[in-house]
């Protein structure tokens, strides 16, 4: 392992951390604006032009707020839980190719921290560990709403992880590799080669599971404001609560990248046009997260589990079986 490699990797990590921390902040701004426009409101308007600096104001507020550890909480776990959410969200980004490789001054840059051969498995696994944040935070909080939220997160977690895995199995059978770069290269050659055309069912299933994975609105039952206040976040304030938030929004971006790369051709052949296409795809999926939040109601936990186990899982299994039969003959 030479020094250049280590320096390059650390530089990539820092860049990804900075970009996606900033994007997570901007994501809250876009969410407020999009939701406001869809509800005929204006959203943040007063801090900076068009309220753009609202993110900075919120950040300053979160950073400078007193770090409150309430009575009766399990202190070490209460303190570590937000870190789990944020850290795992960013750790998952290690195996995601954010951009095709490009050459700067004769030096080829691979915008992926580690192109490991189990890429997608690693991403999903680490994202799944992120669920320990809400689970442990909720259980340590000494608050009934948080406890309900923790129980829900565990139940939801078991339900949708099955769908995520089974839905991805069919495309992975076709590609024959777990590396996201290989999956991307499998779809080089235009829109016709995208996996979404050969695996539409898996695409829909994975997309649905992504909503549960990130805890977005139709499946927003882990921190459902109108039922359980803020769920696991009820007792949190200041930067610890902010870490939960950053983790959630970073997760939304990363899962959007995964959907775009696995099903919609990713960055294609690696030209600039392909890279811009990838950004547009990710932007669409991120926008869709906000869009559904404005339009759709939440489901109950039992409805989500019913949907996952009795509807989506059989469909996913059937999809895998049919894919296998088609590939065999």
């Amino acid at each position, binding site marked *: 392992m030479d020094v250049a490699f280590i320096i390059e990797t650390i530089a990539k990590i820092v860049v990804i951390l900075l970009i996606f921390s900033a994007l997570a902040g901007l994501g809250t701004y876009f969410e407020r604006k999009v939701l406001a426009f*869809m509800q005929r*409101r*204006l959203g943040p308007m007063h801090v900076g032009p068009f309220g753009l600096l609202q993110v900075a104001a919120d950040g300053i507020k979160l950073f400078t707020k007193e770090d409150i550890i309430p009575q009766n909480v399990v202190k070490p776990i209460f303190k570590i839980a937000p870190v789990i959410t944020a850290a795992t969200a960013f750790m998952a980004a290690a195996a995601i190719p954010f951009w095709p490789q490009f050459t700067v001054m004769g030096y080829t840059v691979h915008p992926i921290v580690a192109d490991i051969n189990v890429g997608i498995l690693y991403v999903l696994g680490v994202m799944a560990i992120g669920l320990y944040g809400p689970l442990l935070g909720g259980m340590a909080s000494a608050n009934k709403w948080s406890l309900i939220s923790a129980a829900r997160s565990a139940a939801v977690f078991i339900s949708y992880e099955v769908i995520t895995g089974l839905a991805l199995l069919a495309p992975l059978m076709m590609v024959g590799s777990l590396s996201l770069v290989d999956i991307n290269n499998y779809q080089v050659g235009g829109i016709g080669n995208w996996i979404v055309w050969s695996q539409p069912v898996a695409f829909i299933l994975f997309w649905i599971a992504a909503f549960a994975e990130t805890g977005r609105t139709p499946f927003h039952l882990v921190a459902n404001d109108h039922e359980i206040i803020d769920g696991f976040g009820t007792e949190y304030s200041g930067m610890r609560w902010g870490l939960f938030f950053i983790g959630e929004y970073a997760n939304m971006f990363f899962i959007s990248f995964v959907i775009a790369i696995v099903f919609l051709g990713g960055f294609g052949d690696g030209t600039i046009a392909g890279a811009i296409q990838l950004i547009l795809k990710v932007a669409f999926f991120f926008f869709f997260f906000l869009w559904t939040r404005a339009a759709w109601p939440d489901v109950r936990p039992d409805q989500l589990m019913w949907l996952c186990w009795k509807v989506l899982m059989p469909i996913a299994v059937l999809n895998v079986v049919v894919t296998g039969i088609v590939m065999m003959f």
Partner: protein
Amino acid sequence: MHHEETFTDRNVSEQSAYFYVDIEAYPTTGWDKFKQVVSRAVKGELFVGLWVVMREMIKFDIHTVQYPKEKLPIGPRYRAVHKLLRLWESGYERCIGCGLCEKICISDCIRMDTRIDENSRKEVTEYSINLGRCIFCGYCAEVCPELAIVHGGRYENASEQRAHFVIKDDMLTPLDLLKAGEQNEYPGFGAIIPGSDASVKKTPLAY
């Protein structure tokens, strides 16, 4: 700037304006639930919702009133902070110190002090309304025989001191504004009805 809004009639008069919402029976068996999910997904109810919010976003018909910068028009008979008016010709205060407003005020927030001046006319020396206590019922304006106390449109009452709410000088039309012709007559409670001159009769002296 005097602004009069035309108000729409929002009263629902027709019986047919009400109808019962058709609620389907809840599915009980698993197969019925499955059919409901499928029919809802295929009929695209979810996508109708998506379309509705997207349409509103594209139309960009924002309903927000950015309050300190923009204000909604208020009704002409809106009962906000009181005003004391002056006579148009002479500029004297209209108030004759009869004390009817003080008497009728149901929250007991009007205080006035009068004296007989050199010309043997009644003069109002002190007049205060405790706006912290006033319920803005409009009785004082209604009972005033001289149209001297009326309601105005000033509804922003933030202040550092509660005592700021009771100053007579703030309610009284300043003389320069009166000379500029900017004293607005109030069309609300207690105001003269249009055409009231015609209905004036001589005092019958027969009894």
